[in-house]
Structures are given as structure tokens and as C-alpha cells.
């Protein structure tokens, strides 16, 4: 599962930059003055102990939370805060820590829903299911089938997701995010609760997405082996503050990071 960081990989300009983000829920300061950037085509990990504010950070990036301070710059545009719809339109997709699939729908429908933004037919055409609407459905079905092939979940495409095992559900959720053909993919603990084989599969999918589609990935993960192997750069958060930022090796050697993870004598 090692990933060679070959220098020829096309890491580009800054795609996303969060600057001085602060977020508080009442008196609880979830994030304090966080800044970091993500370059095009890179895999960027966010790590930190539980409650460090990692998920809150992602929620700020795609507009689920509104930070009280700071700006988010994505693809050349600067925002005080994102809005989820705007984020989706600009090509930010994400998966959730606790699987957030549409449980009553089949795998196919879940992934098709990921393409809803790209569907243009009005209510009237949908009601008749003729001509443009049928063509649109079929064209998108074809794209979705590519994703189903890619994730190797062909055999369950018509199964309601509620009936699937956990590891496959995580995969379907990745598929739903990929269906939007995102520029930036936010993955919130894509490997949580998986066994070693499932983790290896998921790593392979993430690396393939990054290599083949050139998708920029921001990833929250607790498995340090995985993080150090697949990410280009790592941000470390602790109690809502940034305590480290750099390549996996730099972060590993950072004393603050070691203290945060291993504890420190007071």
C-alpha cells in the first residue's frame, strides 16, 4: 500500500486556501485561527486527536457550518463562508464520518443522486419520461455504471444500501461523491472501522481517484500508517488549533505533534 511520491506528479497551484478560520458554538471554540492551503491534485491529510476540530474544518469548507471569522478561497474566488449548494456547484464533494447514505434507496439511485446537479430536464419532461429526459437518465446511468465498475460494486447495484455491510456502504458513499465529478473531494474518515483488507481497498480507490481523475483530496484519518503513506502533506489540529503542517516526515518529527498524541507531563 505504499505510494511512491514520484516528483513528476502534477501538483499544481493552490486550489483551496482557508485563512484564519475561527468557529465557535456558543462558548465552545471548535476552531481557532486556522490557516492552510491545498494544492491542485494533491492528497492533503488532516489529523488530530478526537475533538480536535477536523470534521468542523471540513464542514466549514463546504458550507455546512459558517465560521465566525476568516475566509475560504476556492478556485480563485474568496468567500466569507461557503454555502453547501454553492460548494457543490463549484465542485466540492464529500463523504461523512458516520455514513450518510440515503438508506431507502438502491446503490444505483444513491450514486445517481450524486449527479442530480448535472440534470437539467424540467418537471414536465420528467413526468412524461420521454425524449430528453430519457436520454439524460441513460447518459447519466452510463457514467454511474463506470463508477460502479471502478469501485467493484456491480453485484449490489440494485440492493438498498441499508442492507449492505459497512465497508461496502463506505464505498458507495465514495461513489456518490465521485459521481459529481468533483475538483475537490473531502473524505471524513473513509477508513474508520474497517479491517485491513477493506482499508487497503479504500486506499487503492483513493489513490486511483487521485491519479486517474486528478481529483484533489482532503482526507481526515486516524490510521497513521495510511496517512503517512498516501498523503503529500499533513495538517495537524489539536483543540481547534493548528499545531503542525508539512510533509509526513516533518509532521512525524514535530515535537508539538508528538506531545498532542502521546501526552506530555505537566
Amino acid at each position, binding site marked *: 500500500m505504499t505510494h511512491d511520491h514520484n516528483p513528476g506528479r502534477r501538483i499544481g497551484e493552490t486550489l483551496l486556501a482557508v485563512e484564519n478560520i475561527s468557529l465557535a458554538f456558543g462558548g465552545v471554540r471548535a476552531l481557532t485561527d486556522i490557516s492552510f492551503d491545498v494544492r491542485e491534485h494533491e492528497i492533503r491529510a488532516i489529523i488530530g486527536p478526537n475533538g480536535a476540530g477536523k470534521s468542523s474544518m471540513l464542514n466549514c469548507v*463546504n458550507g*455546512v457550518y459558517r465560521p465566525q471569522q476568516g475566509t475560504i478561497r476556492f478556485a480563485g474566488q474568496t468567500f466569507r463562508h461557503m454555502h*453547501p*449548494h454553492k*460548494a*457543490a*456547484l463549484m465542485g466540492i*464533494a*464529500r463523504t*461523512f464520518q458516520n455514513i*450518510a*447514505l*440515503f*438508506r*431507502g*434507496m438502491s446503490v444505483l*439511485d444513491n450514486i*445517481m*443522486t*450524486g449527479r*442530480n*446537479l448535472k*440534470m437539467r*430536464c424540467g*418537471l414536465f419532461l*420528467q*413526468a*412524461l*419520461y420521454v425524449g430528453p*429526459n*430519457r436520454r439524460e*437518465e*441513460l447518459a447519466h*446511468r*452510463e457514467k454511474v*455504471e463506470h463508477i460502479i465498475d471502478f469501485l467493484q460494486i456491480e453485484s449490489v447495484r440494485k440492493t438498498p444500501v441499508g442492507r449492505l455491510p459497512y465497508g461496502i456502504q463506505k464505498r458507495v458513499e465514495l461513489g*456518490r461523491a465521485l459521481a*459529481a465529478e468533483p475538483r475537490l473531494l473531502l473524505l471524513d474518515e473513509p477508513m474508520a472501522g474497517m479491517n485491513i483488507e477493506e482499508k487497503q481497498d479504500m486506499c487503492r480507490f483513493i489513490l486511483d481517484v487521485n491519479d486517474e481523475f486528478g481529483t484533489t483530496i482532503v482526507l481526515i484519518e486516524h490510521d497513521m500508517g495510511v496517512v503517512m503513506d498516501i498523503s503529500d502533506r499533513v495538517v495537524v489540529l489539536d483543540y481547534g488549533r493548528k499545531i503542525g503542517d508539512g510533509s509526513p516526515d516533518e509532521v512525524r518529527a514535530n515535537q508539538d505533534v508528538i506531545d498532542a498524541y502521546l501526552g506530555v507531563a505537566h
Partner: protein
Amino acid sequence: MLYREAGQFKTSYRADQQIFPILQDRIGMLVLGFVALVGVPLVASEYWLTAILIPLLVFSLAAIGLNILTGYAGQLSLGTAAFMAVGAVATYNFQLRVPGIPILVSFLLGGGTAAAVGAVFGLPSLRIKGFYLAVATLAAQFFIPWLLVKVSWFSNDSASGVITTQPVEILGFTFDTPLRKYLFALVVVSVLALVAKNLVRSHIGRAWMAVRDMDVAAEVIGIRIVRTKLVAFAVSSFYCGIAGALYAFAYLGSVETDGFNLDLSFRILFMIIIGGVGSILGSFLGAAFITLLPILLDVALTEGATALGLQLPSGMTSMVQLVVFGALIIFFLIVEPLGLARLWQIAKEKLRLWPFPH
């Protein structure tokens, strides 16, 4: 053995996306359509048409309407009958006040009026969910029938708020006999059921289900929650409105707007609970169950009593009906929360393997 999909390979996505991908289902639907269009008119008595089949169709349509809102989009509503009332009264008024308007246009406008009213009463859904939303839709249920009685303009100043519907006439052909009314209702309901199926398998349907199942994830994907919910309310109310118009024009002929009360709303809610929440087929099954069960119980009790030589006290049958009715609803909620449609699906899965257990 008979119900096998083995060997029925699909070589295109188009073939795979049919409503009935299995050959046996298509044959079944053709047979059903033939029976409904040709068989029923040949054998059905007037009683069967007016007391059973026409209300069955009308309630199926209303149940589809509620199922779109509650089953697919996940918004609980107790205002179904109110939206039916809007549809009935609006259709009546368009027919009455616009000279020379074709009846089908009146129906569409009536449904449209109900859709607009439904969207307005759907506004609370943007802030509240579940039981609280149900209470908010109760407001519609109490307010609308009250308004329709209070303002006598709606019923053309009839003394008791009763509207007496105009004859249904299309291109010079009048749907006046029970049989003709049945056929009219059958066509309207079939077309609208097909439209509903098309909607729920297109992207608006997926958006509804996404909002129902996980609204945060839906929003992150880029689904506009506000718009999706309001469209669900509008489409649902459109269906209820047309059902209300059929209720007046094809079933009763003259209706009291007071009749569109909370009882009726609950009855339609029971239909989708028993039939299957989130299923077009379930809407029909539930409507059939709720419409036919009282009649069956009635017949069974009277026949049984006669056979045993007993004299049942008057009113007894209706009491027993209510008791059995309530018991069945509780039974269904416990045993099969997904309703008759789910039972049908399980039966089909078993039939695929029959006579083998695996």
C-alpha cells in the same frame, strides 16, 4: 416456477430502466389493464361501480398524492382532504364561471390551484419536521374546509355549502352513467399513476428520497432542500386536488365541502401506511384494502349471522368493523411497517425460488 426472471438478460440500460423489467410483470399488467377496461364493464353491476370501483380509483389517486409527499419526500401531512376540497371546489368554479371551458382543463386548473395552496401550506416544512409538521398541516385541514363553507361564493351561494357538479363532457361525449364515470376515472387515474411513477424514478424523485433519508447529505450534494420540499408539496397537492375533483365529479356528484374533513385525511394516511409508504403500487393496495375491507366485513358478518340463524343487533356490524379495522392497522404497524407493497415484494422474491427454499 412460473415467476422466473432467469434468462431475461438486459443488454441496454434502457431495457434495464423499464418500470416492469420482468416479462411476467408486464404480462400481469396487460391482463390487469384488459380486465379493468373490458372485463369490468362487461360484468360489473351498478353497485360495484358506484360503491366500490369508482371510490377505489379516487382514493388510490389521493393515496398516490399523499405517498409522494409522505412516502417519497418524507414530509408528514394531515391536510390531504383539505387539498382534495380545494381541487373539487376549484374545478367546480372554473367549470361554473369560465364559459365554454373544457372539463379536462378545469380539472388541470383545479389541480393547479390545489398545488398552489399546497405549496403555501408546505412553507412550514422548511423549518419544522415530523410530528410538528403534521400539526402545521392540520392548520390547513381545519382552515380550508371552514373557509370554503364560510365564503358561500365558493359553492355558488348554495344554502348548505354543497356543490353540485356539472356533467363531465368531453368532445360532446357525456360521462353520465356509472360505467362511463368509471372509465373516465380509470383513465385519469392510470395516466396520473404513470406520471407519478415517472417522477419518482427521475431526478426529482431521487431528490425527494434524498431529502427524506438524509437531508444534510442531500444539501451537500447540491440538492436545494427548500425547492425540493415545496415541489413535493405542490405535486402531492396537485394529485390530491385531482382526486378531490374526481371525488366530486365522478363519484358523488354533489359534495358537501364539510365532508373533506380530518377523518378523510386519516383514512388516506391509513391507506398509505397499510399499502406501503414510498410505493406507487402500495397506494393502490392500501386504497383497495381500506375501501374493500368494510364491505367484506359487512358481508361476512351478515352472511355469517344468517347462516347461524342469529339476529345481530343493529349497529353491531359497524362496531365490529371499527374494531377489526383498528386491530388490523396495529397489526400492520407491528408486523410489516412497510405495508402490503412490501409483502407483495417478499412474495415475489419467494416465488422466484419456489418450490425450492434457497
